[in-house]
């Protein structure tokens, strides 16, 4: 009986020293453990939670989940050992194997497990890649979203469409106006001094006859009608829009 108690106590002391040496080594050497740093106040501001035993338990559970998910073994919360906590909220952790608690799981598999379930771990602790840092584990970068058509092309298309429509509209209206002018006065817009109505009439009639011959293919109905009117009566251009400014 005493022998058994002696044996267990020796074994406990042995494990104690074993773990002590392990923690000693990895606190200074970081062989198989990872340093974790949390920035809770930065992430949550006024809704920040206090880091205490229960929150640490949640962290351990999250890591246990990640390890189980990655290695397909059953990890328990007791397999995740946390130590060296600071007020910063940073600490070290190691993962022990579920089959053999004295053996630590390799750093590489822990890293892969954490990377695989990183977003899940982040969400459990209400943090993100920047505020929950695993020192040594690179965060996976989110590729920037690229839409099918770059949005600037859309804006460009709108602007050039408006401008193009404007140019076409203005050019067409100028051409139409010129044709109406020609039909209206029967004159190409060359300003000549008009001294009395008599010369006006002469100009009007003479040119409209020429116009009739020259512009037979003119399919502008309005111009045709005006030409007909001009032939029948006197083209009194005093009231037309041909001259914007009166000649002195």
């Amino acid at each position, binding site marked *: 009986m005493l022998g058994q108690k002696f044996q267990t106590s020796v074994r406990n002391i042995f494990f104690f020293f074993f773990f002590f040496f392990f923690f000693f080594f990895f606190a200074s050497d970081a062989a198989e453990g990872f340093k974790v*740093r949390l*920035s*809770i*106040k*930065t992430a949550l501001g006024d809704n920040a939670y206090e880091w205490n035993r229960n929150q640490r338990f949640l962290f351990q559970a999250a890591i246990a989940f990640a390890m189980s998910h990655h290695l397909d073994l059953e990890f328990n919360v007791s397999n995740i050992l946390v130590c060296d906590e*600071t*007020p*910063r*909220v*940073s600490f070290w952790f190691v993962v022990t194997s579920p089959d053999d608690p004295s053996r630590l799981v390799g750093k590489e598999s822990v890293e892969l497990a954490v990377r695989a379930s990183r977003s899940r771990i982040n969400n459990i602790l209400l943090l993100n890649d920047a505020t929950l840092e695993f020192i040594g584990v690179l965060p996976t*970068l989110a*590729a*920037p979203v690229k839409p099918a058509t770059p*949005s*600037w*092309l*859309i*804006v*460009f298309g709108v*602007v*050039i469409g408006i*401008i*193009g429509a*404007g*140019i076409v509209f*203005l*050019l067409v209206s*100028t051409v139409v106006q010129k044709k109406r002018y020609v039909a209206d006065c029967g004159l190409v*817009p*060359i*300003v*000549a*001094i008009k001294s009395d109505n008599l010369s006006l009439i002469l100009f009007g009639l003479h040119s409209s006859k020429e116009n009739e011959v020259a512009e037979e293919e003119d399919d502008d109905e309005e111009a045709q009608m005006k030409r007909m009117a001009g032939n029948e009566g006197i083209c009194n251009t005093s009231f037309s829009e041909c001259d914007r*400014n009166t000649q*002195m």
Partner: protein
Amino acid sequence: MGEEKNPGTEERPKWDNKVQYLLTCIGFAVGIGNLWRFPYLCQIYGGGAFLIPYLIALVFQGLPLLYLELAIGQRLRMGSIGVWKNISPMLGGVGIASMVVSFLVSMFYNTIIAWVLWYFFNSFQNPLPWSQCPLNANQTGYSSECEKSTSVNYFWYRETLNITEDIGISGSLQWWMVICLATAWCVIYICFIKGIDSMGKAVYVTATFPYLVLTIFLIRALTLPGATDGLVYLFTPDWEILKKPQVWLDAATQIFFSLSVAFGGLIAFSSYNAERNDCERDALVVGITNSATSLYGSIPIFSILGFKARTNFNTCLEQNILTLTNHFDIAERNMTVENYDQWFDYLNVTHPGDIASLPLRVCDLQNFLDQSASGTGLAFIVFTEAVLEMPGSQVWAVLFFVMLLSLGLSSMFGNVEGVLTPLQELKLVPKWLPHEVLTAIVCLVSFLIGLIFTLGSGNYWVEVFNAYVGSVPLLIIAFCEMVGVAYIYGMKTFSEDIYFMTGRRPNIYWKACWMVISPLMLLVVFVAYVALQAGTYPTYPAWNPNYENFPQTETKEYPKWVFGIIVALVVVPILSIPVVAVYNLIRCGMKKSNANVSGPNPYSNEAFEIETQERNTQSI
């Protein structure tokens, strides 16, 4: 003397009203340079103290030149070529020089508008594209060029310009820049399609909109934290700096280039005026508005720059705080921006070795305020970075770039007008060619030649054009203009013209300026400018990612062939002045010798001319 019209020419276009004319002139004078050159000069030349040389230059150089151009344009009612030919056939070259300079300037100026358009198109995204670095090729990290400089720099140099390392390496045409340049020319075309009828309507918007946006920015900027830092920094006068001649030179050149004289555009605009119009008051209005706009615009600009400096300073401190908190495992939020200094002193005493080993940045607010820029650097790098920090970045970015667009467009109107009006007077253009087609041809040719600026090395070429075309030739043209009017046309004749137009003769101040002070100032500025330039071989800052001090720009010398082009750009525009003068001298000499042989000219009844002159003096 009324207008002489040949039967067969169209009557001269007219402004709809006085406001249109004034807005066009103000829009031409007020350009992007008022925003991105004047505040920078104010800052480096001792803030409020710079206003003294600036205002002196305005009064003794800027306003007389402005008044002169508006007066002769209005009196002689022709574009720059016609006006100078009219004053004296030997001065005909001045008009041609103005036209060539306007053409060259309009090409590179529209490239700047194309850049503004590109940024405008890209401002309709969330997040703004210059806020993030893109990933590198194998998606393991951010692009190294972007990491070393900033995302804003990267967006400007790589994604906008795709700039090469050297002006000699042309690269290829950047298709996105080509379509932006095409858009810019289409906008110019649609505004000019009906001559000043359409342009006069466009100018209601382009000349007034910048003031609206500046006011909005002013109100917003003054409420930002750090605005007062920027304003204090800008306006604190340093009177010692007035002893440096460089300050006076820069003030004179700034006023001169800011008023957009010697382009021929102002002469063209005033030629569409009524004959009896008070051009003295117009000149004063335009000149004073231009300077007032510069001052007014520098307030929001510097408030925002102060805000940016304060933000950068805070970011720098917070980075240091993070480094220290992580290293010493201090609780979060114990060390803040406010108590950083006390913590730092305490830690430096207790753990000096650790502090020395940490990569802490030196954060100095003055340093950040000194990081000023002018030109494209201010608009596309510094300001876009500031806009990222403001809440609602997209709105501010869009507003800012639309304002730059309006400012640039209204200046472009003057430049293009300085090309179109003289072109029609040169009588090279056939009569049957409609105005719209001529405008289209000019725009198309400018666009095709301007494709140079869309190459990889385009930005370097814009700098070349900006520094050399838009400087020395203008000084020479302005000098010739002033001397031509004051001495060849005659101050007496000019005073009579002004009396005819405004109802009063110019007073002693104007006369003294036109005859003595302004030409003297122009001469001094020109000589000083050339002396400064000729002292050193011209260099340019190149963006070279492989440079050892990257992200600083590498200072390179221009290659010999570029230097040759620079000399050509300076000489060719003003070459026409002596060429035309000599040609006319020879022709005059030949005519005189011919006239002596043939005797009295049966076709010239000089009595008629004397009669009209008498009638002229009687009517006024």
